[in-house]
């Protein structure tokens, strides 16, 4: 159930990918995600495939574990493929049960592209969250957003909110389980009835859950204040980030490989 969601949950380790500066990792992921949409031709995707598998291997994460992260998105991917196959205008490839709904050659081509793009997008970006602890990630984000503070972006506050939100996901999941059980003990029924009944049956879960979240927020605010928390200005950190030579080198290599993938596509090979 709720616990089975593995998408992007931190996978502890000590590989070169794990140790890489989170700032660089975030930037590379953004680059990766953007370039995915510029790649043309299957050879380009071949390069991306080798690169992605290589990085996952280097990180020491079992490939099936990463691919399992695609499972929750299975329907989105299938849906996208279907839309593309049947809605793209072009030469008819086949008809669906002799109806006017026709699949086109161009559509099938597009669908394969979209499925590849989406899958690489999810797998590639989940490598970022799989190999960086939430704290490292939000710290990195804060530092990256640092320059935008001048134009009024509250970088520290955004990062803080993200860390707190991530920190409380497991707590709230546990709380939800507990509330569901307690209401079941009072005869609540979440499994039967039509969709409206079921939606209504959620009230006894949502109200206590929100009350609990507010209570926790209050307690956390109090705890932070009593430790003299003061965000942003002049705040030092326990772990300083250092960009090392090997960080720069690996980032450069990654960028080159990605650039190669795009170029290969544009050169029109295959």
């Amino acid at each position, binding site marked *: 159930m709720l616990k089975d969601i593995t998408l992007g949950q931190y996978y502890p380790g000590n590989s070169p990918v794990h140790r890489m500066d989170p700032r660089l990792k975030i930037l590379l992921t953004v680059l990766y995600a953007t370039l995915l949409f510029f790649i043309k031709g299957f050879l380009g995707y071949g390069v991306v495939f080798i690169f992605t598998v290589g990085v996952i291997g280097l990180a020491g994460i079992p490939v099936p574990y990463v691919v399992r992260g695609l499972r929750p998105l299975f329907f989105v991917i299938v849906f996208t493929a279907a839309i593309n196959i049947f809605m793209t205008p072009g030469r008819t490839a086949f008809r669906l049960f002799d109806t006017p709904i026709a699949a086109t050659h161009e559509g099938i081509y597009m669908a394969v592209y979209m499925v590849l793009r989406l899958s690489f997008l999810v797998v590639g970006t989940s490598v970022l969250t799989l190999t960086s602890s939430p704290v490292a990630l939000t710290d990195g984000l804060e530092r990256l957003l640092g320059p935008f503070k001048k134009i009024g972006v509250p970088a520290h506050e955004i990062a803080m909110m993200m860390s707190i939100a991530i920190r409380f996901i497991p707590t709230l999941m546990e709380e939800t389980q507990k509330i569901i059980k*307690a209401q079941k*003990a*009072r005869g609540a029924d979440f499994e039967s009835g039509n969709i409206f009944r079921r939606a209504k049956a959620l009230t006894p879960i949502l109200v206590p859950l929100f009350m609990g979240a507010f209570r926790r927020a209050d307690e956390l605010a109090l705890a932070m204040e009593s430790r003299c928390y003061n965000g942003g200005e002049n705040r030092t950190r326990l772990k300083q980030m250092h960009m090392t030579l090997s960080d720069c080198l690996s980032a450069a290599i990654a960028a080159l490989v990605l650039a190669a993938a795009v170029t290969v596509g544009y050169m029109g090979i295959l």
Partner: protein
Amino acid sequence: MIKTQGLCHVYQPGSPFEKHAIEDISLHIQKGEFVGIIGHTGSGKSTLIQHFNALEMPTSGKVYVDGVDTSAPKADLRLIRRKVGLVFQYPEHQFMEETVRKDIAFGPSNLRLSQRDIEECVLEAAAMVGLRPELLDKSPFDLSGGEKRRAAIAGVLAMRPGVLVLDEPTAGLDPAGRDELLTRIKEMHENGLTVVLVSHSMEDIAKTAQRIIVLNEGRIAMDGSTAYVFSHADELGAMGLSVPQVSVVMALLRKQGVSIPDAVYTVDQAKRVIIGLYNKAHKE
């Protein structure tokens, strides 16, 4: 009433997080008993009691409620949950209605009773926990700590269960709220309700339970009368548990050569013993 046979429960079997919460638990709780369950944090108490009303299902072994196997495919789980009322820790965290009355009515209305029967159940449950009728139309969030706790327990009692299972019902209450609640629970037991009380407080257990089941690392370490269990202070100590403080005092007195009977584990009993000793000494 409740019977388990070789009950085992494993959380997340087959994953690296596999955890054997309880192992080979066989017990029988009879109608009209008052059973205390004690054990260290993580000893499996909460997992065990969630099997009593079929919120958790055995990995292996069986649980019978009134002779019905809870894991049978056509077992009526809602009927089982009605018969075995389970009050979780901090039950007041589950309030969701705007008045106490509506919140207590949540259980009975899930049973699809008529409006009149629901009202009757609510009033009866409120009386059992000693909630004044004028509190029923207040918001549950405006009550005091002890009142909140009692209102939440009334929410379970309103389903008229045959067994009431309480997980740490006095945690976080002030001494007055604690005493009031324990007195009410004792009263319900005297009126025929079977009660299972899980607690970390040996004092609470000593004051109320007739029988104690001690859990240690998921297994039953001891099962016997209150006097029997509390006479094994050393074994309890080895499991990270203790006996009531007054028993410790009595044991120390006994070591000093004062003649004190074995089964003294509440302040009331100790008072009587000491007054008896004093009167005897005075006469001589």
